């Protein structure tokens, strides 16, 4: 890897069917400082949130503080001790694709719990931003992304790594 390449594509996946329930980025290298997930998603049958589990952890170790607007009002809510973490509560619709971008900071450190922050939404429904916590000091080596129902054909998932100068 050439020195100075600080923002790199790690993996990309595009769904080819309309019945994909999850996608997993596995064997994520620990050589970056932050991860950035960029998704453009469309649901098959009904509007769906986007949620995540790290390293296969299904314990009650996830929490999330959210802000969303639905065109009429702004709402904040919190979910604590969940078995999965929201990346985008408003998520993605059936009619159009909706983007979600999430930053996972210091994902490979083994000293602190992991905090991530993202934003998402789609023009016909919602816009949201949220901060999430995974209460684990393990380095994130895999993340599984789930839809409330199904990811439709043509959904894209791209994971990037950002290095710092340390």
């Amino acid at each position, binding site marked *: 890897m*050439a*020195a100075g390449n600080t923002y790199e594509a790690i993996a990309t996946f595009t769904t080819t069917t309309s019945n994909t329930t999850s996608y997993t980025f596995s064997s994520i290298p620990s050589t970056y400082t932050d991860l950035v997930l960029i998704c453009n998603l469309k649901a098959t049958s009904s509007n769906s949130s986007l949620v995540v589990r790290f390293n296969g952890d299904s314990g009650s170790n996830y*929490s999330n503080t959210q*802000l969303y607007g639905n065109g009429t009002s702004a709402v904040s809510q919190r979910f604590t001790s969940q078995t999965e973490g929201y990346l985008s509560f408003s998520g993605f619709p059936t009619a159009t694709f909706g983007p979600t971008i999430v930053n996972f900071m*210091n994902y490979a450190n083994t*000293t*602190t719990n992991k*905090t991530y922050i993202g934003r998402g939404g789609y023009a016909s429904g919602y816009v949201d931003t*949220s901060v999430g916590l995974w209460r684990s000091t393990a380095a994130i080596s895999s993340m599984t992304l789930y839809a409330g129902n199904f990811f439709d054909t043509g959904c894209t998932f791209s994971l990037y790594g950002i290095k710092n100068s340390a």
Partner: protein
Amino acid sequence: MSPILGIYASQISGHLWAPSGAYDSIATTTVGAGGAATITFSSIPSTYTHLQVRYMGMTSRATYGQDAMNVAFNGVGGTSYSRHDLRADGSAVSAGSATSQGTIDLNYATLGTTVSSYPGVGVIDILDYANTSKYKTLRYLGGVDENGTIAGYPGAVVYASGLFQSTSAISSITFTPQLAAFAQYTSFALYGIKGN
């Protein structure tokens, strides 16, 4: 690598990087066991179009386990700064603003707690930082989530804009916790984004 690029902070280990791409790591600081009162990126080269700061931060504040953070450029104080923000604390949404300030105060929940190791995180974009014809603006998205465990201050997500009323190129950025110090493991990374 610029020989004058610097990182100033107490108890911080800093490393430099030789930039070569469109998105380059300029400098990084990690706070050591003694904590740090401030973090400063200095001698920032003017060769990029935009800057981005990415951080994971914790405060040494004993009460509540959260802290906010102020941002200043080029060592300038006075009344050069203003900001607007939108805050959501898990139940309420509120907005705030301030004008003619001595810093851009990123309020509410920018730094997390060391008590249970709940870091705050954020991304700060500083646009056209080297332009000498424009005032400088930043955009901030950050927050803390503490699984609802700290009564009264369980976390928040904050979206803010800030203005530095100066046409000088930004050559240094200083971050200062409002009520305590940066705690160990806090990490700030400065990146440069090039244009064509």
